[in-house]
């Protein structure tokens, strides 16, 4: 079962992803509401998630910075960037995100990208 860490500062978005991903058979191993919390949780998870769904605009630490730091801990980590800021795509990809989805996106598109980047 593909495992996921969800990072977004909006509670209703976190709940939305969690509900739908669980319905679609994914295992949500954790959630975080800002980049710094994501780093802490990521460090504490023994079995690293197959995929991280990362928002950008969050308090304390944004998604681009969090992505850079997570990838410095584990360069193989797959990060899918999701953001309402379409203009941030290049920065997200430069930081190491393997995929980018502008909000709002279809959950089918997110699932497709997760299947693409997660281990078979």
């Amino acid at each position, binding site marked *: 079962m593909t495992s996921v860490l969800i990072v977004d500062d909006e509670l*209703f*978005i976190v709940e*939305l992803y969690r509900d739908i991903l669980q*319905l679609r058979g994914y295992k949500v191993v954790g959630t975080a509401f800002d980049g710094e919390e994501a780093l802490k949780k990521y460090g504490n998870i023994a079995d690293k998630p197959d995929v991280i769904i990362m928002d950008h605009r969050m308090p304390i630490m944004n998604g681009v910075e969090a992505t850079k730091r997570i990838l410095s801990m584990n360069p193989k980590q797959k990060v899918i960037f999701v953001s309402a800021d379409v*203009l941030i795509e290049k920065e997200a990809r430069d930081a190491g995100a393997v995929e980018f989805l502008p*909000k*709002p996106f279809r959950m089918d598109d997110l699932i497709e990208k997760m299947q693409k980047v997660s281990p078979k």
Partner: protein
Amino acid sequence: MTTPSKALKKEDEFAFYMDLLGHDVLNNNQAVLSYLELVLATPGADKRVRELAEKAVSHVRTSTVLIDNVKRLIAARTIESDKLKPMDMVKSIERAEYELRRHFPAKRIRLETAGMPKNAVVLGNNYAADLVLNVFITAVRLSTADDVVLNVSVIEEKFKGKPVWVMRVVDKNALLPPFLDGKGVAAAYSQDVSTAARSTGVLFAKMIADRLGGDFEAHSLHNDPKKEGAVFTVILRKVERP
């Protein structure tokens, strides 16, 4: 929430609040869209419920495009023409066709694109691609039919003495509001804010085309404003493929 610094100019302050608003609206659109998707994916869902949910999806998509357009218009204030890069117009049309179906799941949309040129490269980065998409979205929004057929042509011509690529989109079912017909596009927006608010897609197309050194116009196919049929014309500066 951060507040804008006192040093910000009034214009930048406006852009800041617009950005905040847009961000939050898009987050909420994400939730609405995803829950609608769940409704649409429910096995055995009533046909009428599905139709209504599909219409709701179109409205969410439209509100997303509105926000994106305003954000891009704000960003476009500072377009630096020497930093513009080439963009393949035909590829943008292909991308737009895919996006259109996502925007309007309740409509059956077909693009007639026979005889497309192979090297219709224009100046304009993603602005030009967004412009193409906006013109298609505008055409479909104005179309009175559920089966939408857009006839699309791309032809090389001259504009103000310079080589350009001209994309024409003909929709025989589009009912063009009189204020958008012909030169009205530019005039309407310069005179009346309430008019601009009725169709930011058209405003976006006109402003971006102007800033990219091209043009955008919409014309009714008939003299009678109550008769359906319109052509949307985008003119963009031709450049050689790098």
